[in-house]
């Protein structure tokens, strides 16, 4: 036990530095007091004299203190804490450098943390369940279809269950979307997991109320039961304690609630409702069963490799037994948490991408390093004195490292805080737009591993910005530095300095236009008025039929049934007493499909080619009914709206928006021009064989709608039978969007209880989401480029002013020899401008490359040149400001003073 005691004592002593120091002080104080009293008592001394003698007998308080610190092994810690204090002082002493450095690095840290978290979320190996890294998924790969998984393994599941001894709780699920109808709330579309009871056993999570599913529930003819999740329980049943036994209707079938799962349980994907999976293999042909997903838990002691080997053997037996259906089928086992990745190799690609993003910090760190180097070089006298007093090079570099670590640590904290807020917004947005289909274990949040990663980044940055400049600055012999400093001789900075300067200018010039055009987009998107009239509600609803119905009805019949129902729904909503305008379209604004088009250069109102600026183009396309433009007040600019004749099959007419005309016809007359969908990419060789799509003729031009969507948009006449699914656009003159949405659901229920509304939301919400995401992306780009530019400008300033300050002595001597001040200034400026000029030239060349890759084709060339000119002027101004100050200071110095100090 003595070693344990010893280790404990050592640890306590090492880590409780603060308490050790105070303990030491208290002990010493007690000792001195006792000794003072004794001396006063025994030798009748005055208290002061007694105390003096007590201190002498004690023998060098500080010496014993140091001995104790050394004994603790905390001496280096004491030194380091001094370095950290110095680091903090440096932050305050150079606020400009602090601001620029922290801003730049925190942007890199934010982006690094985002990338790390996203990659970690996707490539994690464990589910947040007990022994979550032992839960596996099994699927079949069709060798002929290149890695494409097959899901029709209902029959194989029975064989796997029989033969796979290395996997327990083997089961399956499929998800179906159903309308959830309860007594006291409007119907809502929910994603129900039809799952074998083993899914609950495998999760090892007990229900908070009632029971979960068991194998009896899976039998055909058993009562219809359902288990609900925590959020459904809270939101739909008000968290009632007596919910077990309640009846709910899913689609058209009534179910009994038998249990409630606790918060956080959402296995298998992100589910809040579970019904038993009742699929009888004998009802289907092999290879034709409904798709299911198979899961299980590795048996105790079995590894993934063991289980995979056994699965492969079973697969070989299946191939031999059923050569027709299984010739090219190979079963595969994956960690469940990884089974949602496209292929196992994707994880590596993601990690590679993450490393690339981490490199951003290296680039920014290098920029900060340049700044710090200028500061370090200006502190050479301090370094020299410290070295002369016995500090080793290692000690000085450690000090610089600690100072840099303080800077990067502050930046890391700022970066993490920003990342936290970004995560919050991003996750809400992603979950909203992905309709809760994101697996429950993929979460965007700051985890301890993110903090460790960021701490690693901070240390890396500190090495770049502290150690490297430190090593460089302390490379020269100290005596030379001392002489130089006290003799006033200028430090030769040479080519490295010039190269750094030129690079800084080049980087700024190359990056700034990108930032400015990004920023312009941001400003535009903020300023544009996107609001729809506040007194009205525009609600977009996309009804869908029950998917994957167990009885696979004929697709054609199902489509026809769906079309009839939606048209009926639109008609009934149109006759509502509160006055709805109802239109049908193929997609709500903002979610239209994207289309590449060819533009016919020959067709047109006047001479061929007039005004046609492109032969190819792209835009979004929406199919709308005849009432669309009137219902949403989309103003016609020229030509006509759709007429009944346009809705006849095969009529190739098209209406485009203002942005379309602006982009492709340079605001010329668009009426009569023709476009058609481009053939799919990569089929150029086949083009002669395949018949091209027919041309669509532009018959009208309308205002951009909604005003935010300023991209090219094409409207085609909607023929209900050709569009699946359809979206209902409802404009309500009165009533809140939520009330309108509820009314749509109610009328939908009356028309057909199986019609589900997965996306039913106000147009404004959808637009806001899109804008938020867009803004976030643009903001990211702008922040990154701005931080690079800011750092570069600061770097140029630091390098320039430092160079000129170093020439103080030379300037003084020249003045003493009778040089005119104007001439000296001009000369200094000229040399500075030469360096900036070279940098700008290189930067312009770089801009060409960047501009092409970043796709600056939306900005005309002239605008780009203006931007470039602006950047160049900015660099020159930075250069002049940086040079003039130190030059004037140098000119003010009396030559005699300089000579005397020599």
């Amino acid at each position, binding site marked *: 036990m*003595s*070693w344990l*005691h*010893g280790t404990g*004592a*050592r640890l306590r*002593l090492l880590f409780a530095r603060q308490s050790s120091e105070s*303990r*030491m002080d*208290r*002990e*010493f104080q*007690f*000792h001195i*007091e*006792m*000794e003072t009293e*004794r001396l006063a008592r025994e030798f009748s001394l005055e208290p002061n004299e007694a105390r003096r003698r007590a201190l002498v*007998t*004690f*023998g*060098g*308080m500080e*010496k*014993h203190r140091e*001995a*104790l610190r050394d*004994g*603790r092994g905390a001496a280096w810690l004491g030194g380091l804490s001094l370095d950290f204090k110095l680091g903090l002082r440096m932050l305050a002493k150079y606020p400009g450098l602090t601001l620029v450095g922290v801003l730049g690095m925190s942007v890199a840290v934010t982006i690094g943390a985002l990338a790390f978290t996203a990659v970690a979320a996707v490539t994690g190996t464990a589910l947040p369940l007990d022994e979550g890294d032992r839960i596996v998924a099994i699927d079949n790969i069709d060798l002929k279809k290149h890695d494409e998984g097959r899901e029709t393994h209902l029959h194989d599941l029975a064989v796997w269950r029989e033969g796979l001894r290395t996997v327990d709780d083997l089961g399956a699920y499929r998800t179906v979307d159903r309308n959830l109808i309860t007594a006291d709330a409007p119907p809502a579309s929910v994603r129900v997991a039809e799952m074998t009871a083993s899914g609950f056993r495998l999760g090892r999570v007990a229900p908070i109320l009632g029971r979960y599913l068991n194998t009896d529930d899976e039998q055909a003819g058993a009562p219809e039961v359902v288990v609900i999740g925590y959020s459904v329980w809270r939101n739909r049943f008000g968290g009632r304690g007596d919910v077990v036994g309640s009846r709910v209707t899913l689609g058209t079938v009534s179910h009994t609630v038998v249990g409630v799962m606790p918060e956080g349980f959402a296995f298998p994907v992100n589910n809040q409702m579970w019904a038993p999976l009742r699929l009888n293999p004998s009802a289907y042909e092999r290879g034709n069963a409904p798709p299911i997903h198979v899961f299980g838990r590795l048996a105790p002691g079995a590894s993934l490799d063991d289980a995979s080997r056994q699965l492969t053997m079973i697969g070989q037996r299946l191939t031999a037994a059923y050569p027709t259906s299984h010739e090219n089928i190979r079963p595969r086992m994956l960690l469940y948490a990884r089974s949602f990745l496209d292929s196992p190799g994707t994880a590596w690609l993601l990690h590679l991408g993450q490393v690339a993003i981490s490199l951003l910090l290296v680039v920014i760190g290098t920029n900060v390093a340049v700044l710090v180097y200028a500061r370090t070089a200006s502190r050479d006298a301090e370094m020299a004195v410290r070295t002369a007093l016995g500090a080793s090079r290692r000690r000085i570099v450690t000090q610089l490292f600690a100072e840099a670590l303080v800077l990067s640590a502050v930046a890391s904290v700022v970066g993490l805080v920003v990342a936290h807020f970004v995560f919050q917004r991003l996750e809400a947005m992603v979950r909203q737009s992905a309709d809760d289909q994101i697996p429950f274990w993929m979460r965007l949040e700051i985890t301890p591993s993110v903090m460790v990663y960021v701490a690693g980044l901070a240390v890396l940055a500190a090495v770049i910005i502290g150690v490297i400049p430190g090593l460089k600055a302390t490379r020269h012999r100290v005596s030379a530095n001392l002489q130089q400093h006290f003799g006033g001789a200028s430090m030769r900075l040479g080519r490295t300095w010039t190269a750094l300067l030129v690079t800084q200018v080049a980087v700024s010039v190359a990056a700034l236009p990108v930032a400015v055009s990004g920023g312009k987009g941001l400003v535009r998107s903020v300023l544009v008025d996107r609001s729809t009239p506040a007194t009205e509600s525009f609600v977009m609803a996309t009804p869908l039929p029950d998917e994957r119905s167990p009885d696979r009805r004929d697709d054609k019949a199902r489509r026809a049934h769906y079309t009839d129902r939606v048209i009926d729904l639109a008609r009934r909503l149109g006759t509502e007493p509160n006055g709805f305008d109802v239109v049908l379209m193929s997609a709500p604004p903002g979610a239209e499909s994207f289309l590449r088009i060819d533009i016919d250069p020959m067709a047109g109102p006047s001479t061929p080619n007039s005004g046609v600026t492109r032969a190819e183009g792209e835009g979004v396309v929406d199919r709308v009914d005849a009432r669309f433009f009137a219902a949403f007040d989309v103003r016609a600019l020229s030509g006509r709206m759709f007429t009944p004749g346009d809705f006849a099959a095969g009529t190739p007419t098209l209406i485009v928006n203002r942005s379309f005309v602006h982009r492709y016809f340079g605001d010329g007359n668009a009426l009569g021009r023709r476009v058609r969908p481009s053939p799919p990419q990569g089929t150029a060789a086949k083009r002669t064989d395949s018949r091209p799509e027919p041309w669509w003729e532009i018959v009208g031009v309308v205002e951009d709608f909604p005003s935010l969507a300023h991209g090219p948009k094409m409207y085609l006449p909607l023929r209900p039978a050709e569009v699946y699914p359809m979206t209902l656009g409802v404009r309500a003159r009165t009533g809140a969007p939520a009330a309108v949405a509820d009314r749509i659901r109610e009328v939908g229920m009356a028309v057909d209880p199986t019609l589900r509304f997965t996306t039913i939301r106000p147009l404004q919400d959808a637009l806001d989401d899109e804008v938020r995401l867009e803004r976030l992306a643009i903001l990211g780009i702008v922040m990154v480029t701005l931080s690079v530019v800011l750092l570069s400008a600061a770097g140029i300033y630091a390098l320039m002013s430092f160079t000129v300050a170093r020439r103080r002595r030379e300037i003084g001597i020249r003045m003493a020899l009778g040089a005119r001040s104007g001439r000296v200034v001009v000369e200094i400026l000229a040399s500075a401008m030469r360096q900036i000029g070279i940098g700008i030239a290189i930067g312009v060349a770089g801009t060409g490359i960047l501009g092409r890759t970043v796709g600056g084709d939306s900005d005309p060339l002239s605008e780009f040149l203006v931007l470039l000119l602006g950047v160049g002027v900015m660099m020159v101004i930075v250069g002049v400001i940086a040079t003039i100050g130190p030059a004037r200071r140098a000119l003010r110095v009396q030559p005699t003073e300089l000579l005397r100090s020599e």
Partner: protein
Amino acid sequence: MAPRVQTDALRGSIDLLVLKTLSLTSMHGWGITHRIEQLSGGALDVNQGSVYPALQRLEKEGLITSDWATTDNNRQARYYRLTASGRRALRVELEGWRRFAIGLEAVLRTVEP
């Protein structure tokens, strides 16, 4: 009064002295220095401050342990006491010291022929 032993000679044996003193009773730093002085009849003059690094060393090695306690005159002091392994170490050290002293004595007693 016997002549005082110089600090240099004491340096190597301070740990042993501290262990021995603490084997009699648990004590604070000031008490230890005085007890050593008393027991040696004033012959050993310990540099008072140097007892603390020794205490820290012994505590780190797990030979002694310490706690805050109240003294007779109602002051807070850090009291040190021997651990079981401290007692064992003391026995070993004492044995070693005795052999060393006997050897030293034997050498010093030798008279020139």
